[in-house]
């Protein structure tokens, strides 16, 4: 099971946080601080796996963003790397050549995509196309909603 997923920039600013177990705000803040310090202090070409408390931390840097995934001890680290990569691919397909600014200004979309890919700390859908199709459909539904509202506005 995955415990949490954090995205942060090279200056340690948090861009996305997903927690798969209930935790207090204080705990979340502390863990975020610990993760950023640990990951940002790693040498450039070192191993992508760390040990922290009783969890394994898998991290990977994509351009200016660090993706940090915590998994339980019996999980497979290499497949966790693939999970991170798959999420980046999904973001890339959605935003078209995704960069950090996309995630900053459209953070709620990043969450929606994540919620179609992972759920309850496990992988939900293993096919890229399926996830993309679900997101598109949900977006259209949302669109239909708001256009409805705009129409109402226009006609008083």
């Amino acid at each position, binding site marked *: 099971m995955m415990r949490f997923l954090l995205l942060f920039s090279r200056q340690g600013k948090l861009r996305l946080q997903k927690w798969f177990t209930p935790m207090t705000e204080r705990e979340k803040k502390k863990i975020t601080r610990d993760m950023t310090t640990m990951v940002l202090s790693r040498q450039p070409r070192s191993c992508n796996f760390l040990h922290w408390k009783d969890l394994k931390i898998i991290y990977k840097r994509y351009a200016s963003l660090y993706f940090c995934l915590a998994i339980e001890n019996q999980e497979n680290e*290499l497949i966790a790397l693939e999970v991170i990569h798959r999420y980046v691919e999904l973001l890339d397909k959605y935003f078209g050549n995704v960069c950090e600014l996309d995630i900053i200004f459209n953070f709620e979309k990043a969450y929606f995509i994540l919620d179609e890919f992972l*759920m309850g700390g496990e*992988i939900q859908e293993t096919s890229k196309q399926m996830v993309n199709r679900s997101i598109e459909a*949900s977006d259209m539904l949302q669109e239909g909603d708001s256009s409805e509202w705009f129409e109402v506005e226009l006609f008083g």
Partner: protein
Amino acid sequence: MSPSVPLQEMIRAIRSARTQCEERGVIQRECAAIRAQFRQADNGGRSHNLAKLLYVHMLGYPAHFGQMECVRMIASPRYSEKRVGYLGAMMLLDEKQDASLLITNSIKNDLSHSNQYVQSLALCTLACMGSAEMCRDLAPEIDRLLRASNSYIKKKAALCAVHIVRKVHELGELFAPAARSLLSEKNHGVLHGAVVLIIELCERNPETLERFRKTVPDLVQIMKGLVLSGYSPEHDVAGISDPFLQVRILRLLRILGHNNEGASDAMNDLLAQVATNTDSTKTVGNAVLYETVLTVLDIKSESGLRVLAVNILGRFLLNNDRNIRYIAMTSLQKIVGTDHNAVQRHRGTIVDCLKDQDASVKRRALELSLALVSATNIRSMMKELLIFLSSCPVELKSHAASGIFNAAERYAPSQRWHIDTILHVLTTAGGDVRDETVPNLIQLITNASELHCYTVHKLYRALLIDISTQSLVQVSCWCIGEYGDLLLRGECQETEPVQVTEDDVLDALETVLQSHMSSPATRGFALTATMKLSTRITDNVDRIRSVVSIYGSCIDVELQQRAVEYNALFKKYDHMRAAVLERMPVIEKNSPGHTNGESTGEALKETQGSRMKPTEPKQLPQPANQVCDLLGLLGGSEETLQPGPFAAPGLLTNTASTAGGDLLDLLGDLEPEPLTPAPIVPVYDKDGVALTLSCEKQSDVALTVTLTASNSTDADISSFTLQAAVPKSVQLHMKAPSGDSLPARGAAKVTQMVVLNNPNKVNLKMKVRISYSSRGSTFQDTVQIDSFPGL
């Protein structure tokens, strides 16, 4: 999809703030506006406001006032508002908040919504933050969705069920049938969810595990389909068809095959196929191979398959990718105990990894190397380990040093090698060794009597080079103090002779005494060494006398006390000085793995023959009548049983040369003999658990028996208890045992004293029943003791 303009404007405003203070100001203004908006009636921009609040929350600012808004938005009929509302619920609400209960009803309604995307929102939120009550409430609904819905909802319902089972274990039973039927679905998402659910159910409940074992053939079929199928564009990742599903199925097979011959046999072929057919050029392939290896090693696989798995790990070790090397070593570490020889074959590669740049890899390599040290490879391994020690990162130094010490102690080919190794470690990493290294080394040196000359020469030279490493300096001072005469004699067989004068030696010790680098303990060592030399040198005794008297007024109280006492030794007790300062006897080591009980047996023999005293029967405190018949412990009806746990101290495996018929008619002596330790007799040794016995006669009817238990296996032992039975007329009184757990590899022992009173002087016998738990199972055994040493 059109971006949320108000949200983006706010984000831009926040980002353009140049200082933290400015940012706080912007955020406060925005939050005030948001709060005002929340209080108003329904306006079109509700979702934008909540999204703004969530952004602010992510920056770390408090956002609890948005919780009720989330609840309201979730209940809204508009999809856009529901979407943001549920997102807000997942971010701001957790099961500890009261507001989370309020959304239970909304979730319930949305689970049966006509639109699958609304259903999906509800399922996602439930799986993310559903509390135990919510789970109990909605479990039947989830079960319904598991059976009758489209695959989009089924896969989400499966993961929701996983969350429910994690929260409320009993509900696992509810989902088991549905999980079983889901395995026949074609949709990969649903299959994946089903496999995760089954893993969760099997891990929680062994009975469910038994039932799901029947699914092994189905799982094998599915895997075969994935591995052998051609290219499938929907699920392909670098040539592997749906690696995520493959890894999950392998994990489930591991759980089902663990400790079960039948299931393991059924999956043997498949695992061999996956291991050989999977392309290992990319990380994905290696991920699947890794999972396969873990599965093979954890089930009852045939030996050929195990060798294949270890070879795959060996290949991983040679991989350029650091991650692969790291996980290879982690896996090898797990099996180094069971498949030791297989891992030994890759020792060379592992030792090479000690030189890797990465700290995590180095740490793994160190642990694995220490586990692979054996009597045959000790010399070459130690060379590598010492090279590693000189260049290893600081956080690993003390671990490496203690690992080296342990290895040296267990497999040292010769004493000289052992001493050399320890000296090497002290010179390279002396600051990071543990405290007991100094006394251990001293004890080792005293035991190697032929090497005293060699040792003191080496240590003297080390002292001249560098006096900053406290442990090394302490040992050197001690040796110079003890064996200074050998040093001054000049010749030495093992090393080149060097002329050392008395002044040189005293200079060296004085440098240590006066240096600001020396700790108070070290200075104590140096002062005592200087004093000891007064009996070993001839010319410069006056110099020593003056040094000692100077320190009589030292500020450090310990040094002052020593100096004053030594001064007194010079002045008033000069006649005793030689005797006090003479060579120390060989220090006995009181730790497991060392046999040094030879001296005790002879000593006892000597004293036995010389005592003939009248005895007065000693009345021992009679224990309360606690005769209770433990089934089967007693053979005949004439023996009574005294229950109670007892343990015994001391693991000195000395063969009982003193037990025997000729001691039985010896009358015990009334005066305790403090200098003769009682002989220790092993009475039981099976499966790594050993029990030894020693006894001491208090009078000719009373006997104190001390029993010691030790554990030389690799697993810890708990709930260790002993029960005893003695012949009817004998009384037994058990003292409290020292403990009931025996850590692995003899790290500690359990001891207990038993007092026996034999007023009728019958033939003393004792039956002991040993029971303990190890590795999750309980063991019991009985041993009869017919002869007591020293009796």
